[in-house]
């Protein structure tokens, strides 16, 4: 039996003796039969007991046998949070699928002329963040929904190692997310400063529902919204995660509960948002992925989706520079140009 078990046993034995001693007093009237457990549980829950129990176990609230607020939080997490998170995370892909079926991909007619969009550092930072995020999302969602999805499906014995592995992996990769997030933030922030045209872009839904394609700079309003959501929720996610990684340093249990709420909510929001981002980066808009893979995009893609950036590149003569280099030696152009930039 470990220290906690021993403590529990001793406290329960003491409390039940105390409760019995109270119950030994004969009832005043002939019909009142006190519930022998009532006083015990009152004491265990420390209702109306001003003096907390004492224990030698070091830790937050370790002198409390049952934390009533914690139970309420657990019920809220199970009954509400997990349910609404499931609706959101299942709903977003359905909406994306419907949109794709109705709207189809935004097509690109390649011009064969390329523009350098992301240098090597941009790309490594992006994919580092994406890899770590997706791993954390996968393990985090296993921990959130495992009890309701994996347990009925594979049973408790199978879920136990899955949960342990997810927890360890999640804890270890968490700090890497903060490192990657800061790196991406520093590299991309200058290109994500808000401008009036971004609001117009967002109000027009990026031109997805007809009409002329709204004007955009290097990043459009939707991308900037993703960037800033990632910055804010990502930071909240990281800070709350770090607190949960080191619970013994938390000043109070309430703060830990708050960290759990913030962590869960920020994670679910970002995962839902990431579905949209991944869709736009792959099947949604032709020619977009190439930028994050090879660093270059087709000139027509730039003109179509980022007209102001395109105009700037043309003004600076970047289009010609890359196209000429490409004609000379197609495979190495990105590398050569990057070397000049990084």
């Amino acid at each position, binding site marked *: 039996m470990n220290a906690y078990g021993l403590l529990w046993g001793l406290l329960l034995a003491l409390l039940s003796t105390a409760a019995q001693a109270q119950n030994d007093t004969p009832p005043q009237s002939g019909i009142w039969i006190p519930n022998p457990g009532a006083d015990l549980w009152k004491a265990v829950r420390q209702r109306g007991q001003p003096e907390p129990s004492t224990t030698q176990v070091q830790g937050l609230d370790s002198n409390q046998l049952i934390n009533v607020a914690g139970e309420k939080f657990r019920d809220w997490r199970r009954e509400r949070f997990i349910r609404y998170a499931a609706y959101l995370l299942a709903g977003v892909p359905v909406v994306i699928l419907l949109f794709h079926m109705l709207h189809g991909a935004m097509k690109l007619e390649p011009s064969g002329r390329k523009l350098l969009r992301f240098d090597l550092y941009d790309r490594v930072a992006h994919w580092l963040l994406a890899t770590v995020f997706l791993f954390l999302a996968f393990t985090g969602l296993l921990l959130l929904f495992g009890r309701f999805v994996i347990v009925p499906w594979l049973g408790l014995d199978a879920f136990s190692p899955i949960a342990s*592995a997810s927890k360890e992996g999640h804890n270890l990769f968490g700090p890497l997310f903060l490192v990657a997030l800061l790196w991406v933030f520093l590299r991309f922030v200058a290109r994500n400063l808000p401008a009036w045209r971004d609001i117009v872009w967002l109000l027009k839904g990026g031109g997805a529902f007809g009409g002329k394609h709204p004007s955009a700079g290097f990043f459009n309003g939707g991308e900037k919204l993703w960037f800033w959501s990632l910055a804010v929720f990502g930071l909240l996610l990281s800070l709350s995660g770090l607190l949960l990684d080191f619970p013994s340093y938390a000043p109070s249990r309430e703060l830990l509960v708050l960290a759990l709420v913030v962590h869960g909510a920020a994670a679910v929001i970002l995962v839902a948002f990431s579905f949209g981002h991944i869709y736009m980066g792959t099947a949604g808009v032709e020619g977009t992925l190439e930028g994050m893979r090879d*660093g270059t995009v087709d000139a027509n893609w730039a003109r179509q989706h980022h007209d102001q950036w395109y105009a700037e590149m043309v003004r600076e003569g970047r289009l010609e520079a890359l196209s000429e280099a490409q004609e000379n030696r197609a495979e190495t152009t990105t590398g050569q140009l990057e070397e000049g930039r990084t």
Partner: protein
Amino acid sequence: MTVAELVDGPLWTVALTVFVAGVAWRLLVLIATGWKRDLSHPRSGSLGGAIRGVVGRFLPSQGMAGRLRLHLVAGYLFHLGLFALLFFAAPHVDFYRDRLFGFDWTPLPHWAFILAAEAAFLGLLMLWLNRVLNPVTRLISESGDHAASVLTFLVMLTGCLALARSHETLRLLHFFVVELFMIYFPFSRLMHSFTFLLSRAAQGAHYGRRGVRV
């Protein structure tokens, strides 16, 4: 025989044998092959050159440092992290004592073990991403390079998943991947863990003889 018995018993013996014999064989062959005698008059000592070659290559040559910044940082993060994990993580030290050497040494404290793991993961991910995203390294990478990276990553990942040391299944999974890694090791790019010393020394000695300063 259960899977657990197989992984803990015969497969471990096979993996260890292939690893030790394979590495020894390849190193012996390399050393025995030697290299062509250089008949030219030596301009300076080859030993000094060999030492300079081994030590000097820990830093990139001037002029390359800027271009290799990412490689340098990620490379050191990964290799130092992995070295610390491999030889100084408490579960590994226990393993070496119980299954290999019969003695142990002071392991890293838990926080340092975790820090080393973070560094190793960060470094490996950055190195592999650089490999596939840099058009030049992508072009010169072969399936063996990717296999070595992926297998190393899987060894580290399964180790990290088993960190709680509370589930036999997770320990066995990690051990099984380690065994695959050991069997693959002598036939692959992973051999550079040993051969880098030979190649640096040979190249350094060659340059030393010719009086080339790198």
